[in-house]
């Protein structure tokens, strides 16, 4: 059976590296299944599980978002370490600016809300991964 190389990395560590007969991931536009020899594809990843199937073995990883690159013989998953919401990016940028102005960043309500909602989304996605894993067992 032909296999495809898969690398899963996050910015602080290498999560998985190996061969797979099939890779399943949650793209921003829906579930993806990647078999060896797939056409080149670049897509965003939503929070959810990435499953790596090699023959009868299967491993699952939680990925909280990021990017997926597919070459015919290679899959690369660039995972984010944390849930990234646009609003959160914005608030981080504001924080850096405020630090430049030597001001103490005031934690306003909108920032907390963005953080909380991002954490919630991640928690839900984590739960999904765990539930899927349970079902498969």
């Amino acid at each position: 059976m032909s296999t495809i190389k898969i690398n899963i990395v996050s910015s602080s560590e290498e999560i998985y590296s190996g061969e797979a007969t099939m890779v399943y991931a949650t793209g921003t536009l829906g579930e993806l299944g990647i078999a060896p020899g797939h056409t080149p594809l670049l897509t965003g990843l939503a929070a959810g599980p990435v499953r790596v199937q090699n023959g009868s073995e299967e491993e699952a990883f939680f990925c909280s978002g990021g990017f997926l690159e597919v070459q015919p013989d290679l899959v690369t998953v660039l995972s984010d370490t944390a849930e990234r919401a646009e609003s959160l990016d914005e608030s981080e940028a504001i924080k850096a600016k405020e630090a430049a102005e030597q001001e103490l960043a005031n934690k306003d309500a909108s920032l907390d809300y963005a953080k909380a909602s991002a954490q919630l989304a991640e928690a839900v996605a984590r739960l999904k991964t765990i539930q899927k894993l349970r079902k498969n067992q």
Partner: protein
Amino acid sequence: MANTKEVRKQIASIKSTQKITSAMEMVAASKMKKTQDTMLEGRPYSLKIKDVISHVALANSEYPHPFYEERTPKKACFIVVSSDKGLCGGLNINLFKQVIAKSAELNEQGIESCFALIGTKAAGFFKSVGGQVIAVAEKLGDKPNPDDLIGLTKVVLDMHKNGDIDQAYLCSNGFVNTMTQQPNVEQLIPLAPEEKEESTPTQWDYIYEPEAKELLDGLLTRYIESLVYQAVIENNACEQAAKMIAMKNATDNAGDLIKELELLYNNVRQAAITQELSEIVGGAAAV
């Protein structure tokens, strides 16, 4: 000649300093191992994202990204990575010297500079030198979180998007080995296009889901962020290595100083004894 009490006091004070520096040396040595591990752990991501970016650069993309676009430069931004704490020899100063030199060089070509600073030392330095500071990220600790740098990077990238800056440079110390740290000033934006290999088939492009623009924007932003993050953790490893060496030198110097002072102390003591003896002998002879 100094009296024995003074010399003894000096020796005691240097000894206590030596104890501190040798303790700091040991702390730095153990932290150095950790920061080097962190640096190595971060490497796979930066290598992989670099691979992806070079694939993307080879693909015949329908959307040329602004990060690759060469504009006539009017203003440049320096992202300066420094340590939060001092006592690490010339590590930060050597880097700042290079940044200032590069900034002066650009100034001659009529290009203005502004600064985005990481680390307390850079913030302090550029505050005293004067210069337009657009963003600061401080106190990231020994194990910086990539998320802490998002804000700073976004400020710089937004300025690039709005046309406020045309170039960005990443300035940080590169880890060569424990003894050597190399200050680097590298061009971040515009990204240098990868050299295309002759043999590669050129007419292919990715399937983009959802949109090429959205994806490449996200991916290249992530790429820049990863470069900045990698620079920060590498700088951390440099800081601990430099600190260890600086503290080792301080401990050695303190040892030398103590040796010299002990010699002086013995000389002074001997002289005092000789003098006392000769006084006694002289006194006895007079009687």
